[in-house]
């Protein structure tokens, strides 16, 4: 377990020093959200209606932007093969690296979501549901992304392929995330049911995705 912590700590330090982690994802998130009212016009009622969905789609894209770095850098400089010869099983390496990815992208993005919601006329009583759903749902985004990142790790400029592979897997997370986040605004759906399904999606992906990603990584080393 201390070894898993060592891996997470190392990835956090690397993300902080190299940039391209939290800062870039936040910047991208900001730009996408600011673009939307410019493109859709200043109709405040419409912006309120689409705010949860727009925030979620922007969040998906921002997370996706950095997922290809989960394994790529360590694959290219040989660190990944040394890691695989260490005492930690590949599945736990995936868990550690993906957890670090979530801490540097999913978590700050989720916390920034209501702030950016102001641009979309997000009402104040929707702040809490938006933060709650993005916090619950974003681990699923990181872990599903890790599977795509593991599959495309040896592919030059695999970022686009990664997006095509991973975005369809994000659809359930998006649907239940938006319906829970929007419950406070749009009405009849309750917050609880979609939020629980979202939590189930996150938990399932935390358990299952490391197995798939580790299998994909092993394929690259044979």
């Amino acid at each position, binding site marked *: 377990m201390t070894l898993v912590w*060592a891996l997470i700590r190392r990835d956090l330090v690397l993300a902080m020093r*190299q940039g391209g982690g939290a800062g870039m994802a936040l910047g991208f998130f900001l730009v996408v959200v600011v673009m939307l009212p410019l493109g859709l016009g200043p109709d405040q009622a419409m912006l309120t209606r689409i705010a949860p969905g727009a925030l979620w789609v922007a969040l998906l894209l921002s997370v996706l932007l950095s997922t290809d770095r989960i394994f790529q850098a360590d694959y290219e*400089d040989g660190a990944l*093969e*040394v890691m695989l*010869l*260490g*005492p930690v099983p590949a599945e736990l390496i995936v868990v550690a690296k993906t957890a670090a990815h979530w801490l540097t992208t999913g978590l700050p993005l989720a916390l920034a979501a209501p702030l950016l919601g102001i641009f979309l006329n997000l009402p104040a009583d929707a702040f809490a549901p938006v933060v709650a759903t993005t916090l619950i749902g974003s681990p699923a985004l990181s872990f599903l992304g890790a599977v795509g990142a593991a599959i495309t790790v040896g592919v030059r400029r695999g970022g686009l392929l990664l997006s095509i592979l991973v975005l369809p897997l994000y659809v359930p997370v998006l649907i239940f995330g938006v319906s829970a986040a929007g419950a406070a605004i749009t009405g009849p759906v309750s917050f609880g049911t979609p939020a629980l399904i979202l939590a189930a999606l996150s938990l399932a992906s935390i358990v299952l995705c490391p197995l798939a990603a580790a299998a994909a990584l092993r394929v690259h080393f044979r």
Partner: protein
Amino acid sequence: MRLVAEGLACSRGGRVVFRDVSFALGAGDSLLLTGPNGAGKTSLLRLVAGLVEAMAGTVRLEGGDAELTVGQHAHFIGHLDAVKGALTAAENVDFWRAYLGGAGSGDALDAFGLADLADIPAGFLSAGQKRRLALCRLAVVPRVLWLLDEPSVSLDAQSRDTLAALVSGHVAGGGIVVASTHGDLGVPFTSTLALAGRGANP
């Protein structure tokens, strides 16, 4: 402790690189792999480490921990240095020491004379210095089997001597070393395996 390879064959990109390679190494044995470019020296070392799948044959470590793979008993020094440019030299070595389960002494960088560069981000090191940083893993983490793929590339004369002393010391201490090189590592190997290339039998 015995490393036994039997009837190994390997194909890369649909081409048979070598076949019927067998060897057995006991404690204190060292094996030098020679052969032209593309003869499969790297492939053989990666195969022993478990980073490449064998087309045929088996590798096993008799007397090792049954829970661990052969690769988990081994140091694999490949063409890539596994050095992170954003971490300092000391942080690089400290991470690998913690992760690979090495002993916790503070003089990790002294082995290859990098102590003065401990606080420099590794991205500013030269190719030879990065290589020495990678080789520090050998010194700080005890592992029985050393798989060295061209370990002396871009090293200066003094570092080559340090490496030779390190390898000799490991062999004298009952370790097993398999190394490939085009130059001279300055170490007396107990056996040599010449890979002929083009899929021919060695």
